[in-house]
C-alpha cells in the first residue's frame, strides 16, 4: 500500500465531487426522500370515501350513518341516488365504497327479523379494500352493541391487545427506520455506480492501466471519498428520525453506527461492482436503479414482513442486504435487544460477509490492462 499515491487519488476524487456540485445532492437526496416519504406514506386507512344510500331514513338508519360521520376513518356522503349512479362514481374512482341501507331496515329490526346491509368495495387496491371492510364491520358492530339489549347466558369474550414496541401504533415508528434502510441503499450505490465506468467511457481509465497503482489501492482511493461523505448521512438521518419524527431510540447507538457504516460500504460495493462489469454509463445507471429502488422498498419490511412472503420473493429478499440491515435497525430503534439477540449477531455477521464478498468480487473483476 503506497499511502502517497492513494492520497493523491483521494484528493483528486474529492475535488471532482466538489466541482460538479454533486456534494449538494449527496446530502439533499437522502434527507429529502426521508422527509417526503415520512410524511407521505401512510399505511392506515383514513378518509375512505364512502357513499351511503339510506333508503330507510329512520331513527336507526340515521344512528348508523352518524357513526360513520363521527369516524375519522371515513368521509361519508349520505345521499339518495340510483344504485347505478353510485356504482358509476366508484368506476370513476370518485368513491371507494357504497353502503346500502334497505328501506325496511328499522321495521325489520324492531320485529327482530334479519336485515341485510349491502356493502360494495372497490378492490382495485386489495389491501386497502380488506382494511376498509374490517373498519366498516367494526362500525356496524359498534352501533349494534349500543342498541342491542344486554344478554348473558354465556360469557362474552373481549380482546385486550397490547402493542409491543410501538404502543401508539404510530406509522412513523414503523416506517422511518425502514426508509433509512432504503435511502442508504439507493444513494451510495447510484453515486459509486459511475465512478469507474465513467473513466472507461471517457478513456481516462488508461491512466490507471499505465500507472503503478494496484487494483485494491485504486478501489480504496475511489471508494474512500464517497464513503466518508455518506457517513455523515448516518447522523443526519438519525437526527431527522429521532427529533423530527420522534421515533424512539432504545438500542445502542454504537451498533446503529457500526452497522450503518457497514451497510453503506455494501451499497457502495454493489455500485462499484456494477461499475466494473458494465461498459457504458447508461447501462450502469439503469442496472443500479432497477436493482436498488424497488427491491430496497419491497424487501425492506415497510409494506410487509419477510416471513409473509413466499417462493421467489422470499429467496430474493434474502439476496438483498436491506433485509438484514433493517432487522438490526428496527431493533436499535424500537426494541433495544442489541447484540444479545442471536438473530442480530447472525445478521451482523451476514452483513460483514456481504461487504467482504462484494468488495473482493469488485477487485477481482477489475481489469488492469486492455484486452
Amino acid at each position, binding site marked *: 500500500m503506497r499511502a502517497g499515491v492513494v492520497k493523491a487519488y483521494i484528493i483528486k476524487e474529492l475535488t471532482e465531487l466538489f466541482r460538479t456540485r*454533486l456534494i449538494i445532492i449527496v446530502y439533499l437526496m437522502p434527507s*429529502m*426522500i426521508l422527509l417526503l416519504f415520512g*410524511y*407521505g*406514506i*401512510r*399505511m392506515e*386507512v*383514513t*378518509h375512505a370515501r364512502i357513499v351511503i344510500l339510506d333508503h330507510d331514513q329512520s331513527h336507526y338508519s340515521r344512528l348508523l350513518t352518524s357513526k360513520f360521520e363521527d369516524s375519522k376513518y371515513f368521509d361519508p356522503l349520505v345521499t339518495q341516488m340510483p344504485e347505478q349512479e353510485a356504482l358509476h362514481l366508484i*368506476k*370513476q374512482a370518485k368513491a371507494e365504497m357504497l353502503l346500502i341501507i334497505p328501506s325496511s331496515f328499522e321495521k*325489520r329490526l324492531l320485529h327482530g327479523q*334479519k*336485515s*341485510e346491509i349491502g356493502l*360494495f368495495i*372497490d*378492490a*382495485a*387496491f*386489495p389491501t386497502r379494500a*380488506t*382494511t376498509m371492510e*374490517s373498519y*366498516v*364491520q367494526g362500525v*356496524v358492530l359498534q352501533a349494534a*352493541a349500543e342498541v342491542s339489549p344486554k344478554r*348473558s347466558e354465556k*360469557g362474552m*369474550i*373481549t*380482546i385486550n*391487545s397490547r402493542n*409491543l*414496541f410501538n404502543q401508539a401504533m404510530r406509522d412513523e*415508528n414503523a416506517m422511518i427506520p425502514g426508509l433509512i434502510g432504503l435511502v442508504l441503499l439507493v444513494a451510495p450505490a*447510484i453515486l459509486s455506480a*459511475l465512478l469507474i465506468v*465513467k473513466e472507461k467511457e471517457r478513456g481516462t481509465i488508461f491512466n490507471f492501466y499505465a500507472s503503478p497503482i494496484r487494483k485494491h489501492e485504486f478501489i480504496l482511493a475511489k471508494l474512500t471519498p464517497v464513503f466518508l461523505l455518506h457517513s455523515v448521512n448516518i447522523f443526519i438521518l438519525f437526527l431527522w428520525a429521532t427529533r423530527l419524527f420522534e421515533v424512539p431510540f432504545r438500542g445502542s447507538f454504537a451498533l446503529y453506527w457500526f452497522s450503518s457504516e457497514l451497510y453503506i460500504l455494501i451499497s457502495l460495493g454493489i455500485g462499484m461492482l456494477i461499475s466494473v462489469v458494465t461498459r457504458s*454509463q*447508461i447501462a450502469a*445507471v*439503469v*442496472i443500479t*436503479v*432497477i436493482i436498488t*429502488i*424497488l427491491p430496497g422498498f419491497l424487501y425492506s*419490511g415497510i*409494506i*410487509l*414482513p419477510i416471513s*409473509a412472503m413466499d*417462493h*421467489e420473493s422470499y429467496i430474493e429478499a434474502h439476496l438483498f442486504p436491506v433485509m438484514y440491515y433493517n432487522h438490526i435497525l428496527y431493533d436499535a430503534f424500537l426494541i433495544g*435487544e442489541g447484540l444479545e*439477540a442471536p438473530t442480530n449477531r447472525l445478521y451482523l455477521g451476514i452483513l460483514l460477509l456481504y461487504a467482504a464478498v462484494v468488495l473482493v468480487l469488485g477487485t477481482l473483476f477489475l481489469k488492469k490492462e486492455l484486452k
Partner: protein
Amino acid sequence: MRIFWAIVAKELISFLRSWGLLAVVLYAFTLDVYIAGAGMQIRPRNVAVGYVDETGGGISRKILAHLHAPEFVAPKRFLSQKELSHAIFNKEILVGILFDETFAKAYRRGDEAVMNILLDATAVSQSFTTLSYLQNIVMSFNKTAFPVVLKSHKLFNENADNHTFMALSEMLSIITMLSILLPAMVFVKEKEEGTWDIMLLMPVDTRVTILAKSFSQVLIVFFGTILCVGFILFGSFSIPMNGSFSAFLLLTFFYIFTSAGIGLFIAAVSKSILQVAQFSMLVMMPLIFLSGAWTPIHAMHPVLEKLSLISPLRYYIEGSESIFYRGTAWIDLWPYFSGVILLGSILYWYGFRKIGKLF
C-alpha cells in the same frame, strides 16, 4: 420525415448493440415483475402465533383451532408469559395470546372473559390485519342475537387478490423509471461527448431531432410494456381486463411520452450522466412512491396529495387501475388522458426551449 426515421433507427440500433442494457431492460419487464407479483402477499401469511394456556383447554383450544394455514403457522405453546415475550423480542413470534386462569371461569360463569394479546407492532399493517382476524374469530364465538348482517362484496377483484395488483404496480414503476432514465441519458450522453452541439448546428429543425430521439426511447419502453402485459400480467397472473385494451395501450403511449418529457427536463438541467443519475433519483423516487402505486393516495398528507396532482404517474396509475379492474368506459377516462397529455405538453415546451437552443 425521412430525417425523423433516420434518427429513430440510429437510436434503436445503438440500443440493440449494447447488449447489457438490452438484457437489463428485458429482465426488468419480465422476471422482475414476475417475482414481485408471485410472492407478495399483503394479507397475513405464515403469522407465527405463540400462546400461554393456564385454563386447561376447552374454550382456548377452540379458539386456537381457528388459527390455521395459510394465514397462521400452527400455534406454539409456551409455558410462561416470560418465555413468550422473549420469543416476541427475538421476532420469532408475531402474535402472542395469553389465556389466564380466570378466562375460562369467567366465560362459563357468563361474565366478560378477557383474552390478552401481545402484538409485535413493528409491522403495523400485519398486526392490524391479524388483530381483525382474531376479532372475527371471537365474534363468531359471541354470536350476538343482533339481527343485522353486513353483506360485503368486493368489486372488480373478488378475492382481493394481491398478485395481480403487485405485478401491475411493479410494472408501472418500471415503465416510469425506464421512460425517464433512457431519454435523459441519450440526450446527456451527446451533451457530454459534445455531439449535441453538432446536432443543433445541422440544418434540421431541432424539434424534430428532440422528438425523434425521445420517440425512439418511447418505442423501446412501449415494446417492453407490451411484452410485460402479454407474458406476465395476462400469461402468468391472468389479470382481469374489464375495460378496453386499446384504451390502455393509448394511455400507456401518452404516458411514456410524458415521462420521457421529464427525462428531457432532467437532461436540460444536467451536464453529465452522473448528474442525470442523481437528479433522476431525486425526481423518480417521490414520483413512484407517492403517486398511489404502492400506498393509497387519499391517506397522504394533504399538501402532498395536492402536489401529486402534478405527477403524471398519478393519472396513469388511476387510469390503468380503472381500465384493468373497474372497467371504466372510454368517456370516463378523459381526466386521465387530459392530465397526462397536458403535463406532457408543458414538459416538451420547456424541453424545446431549454435544450433545443445552442445559446
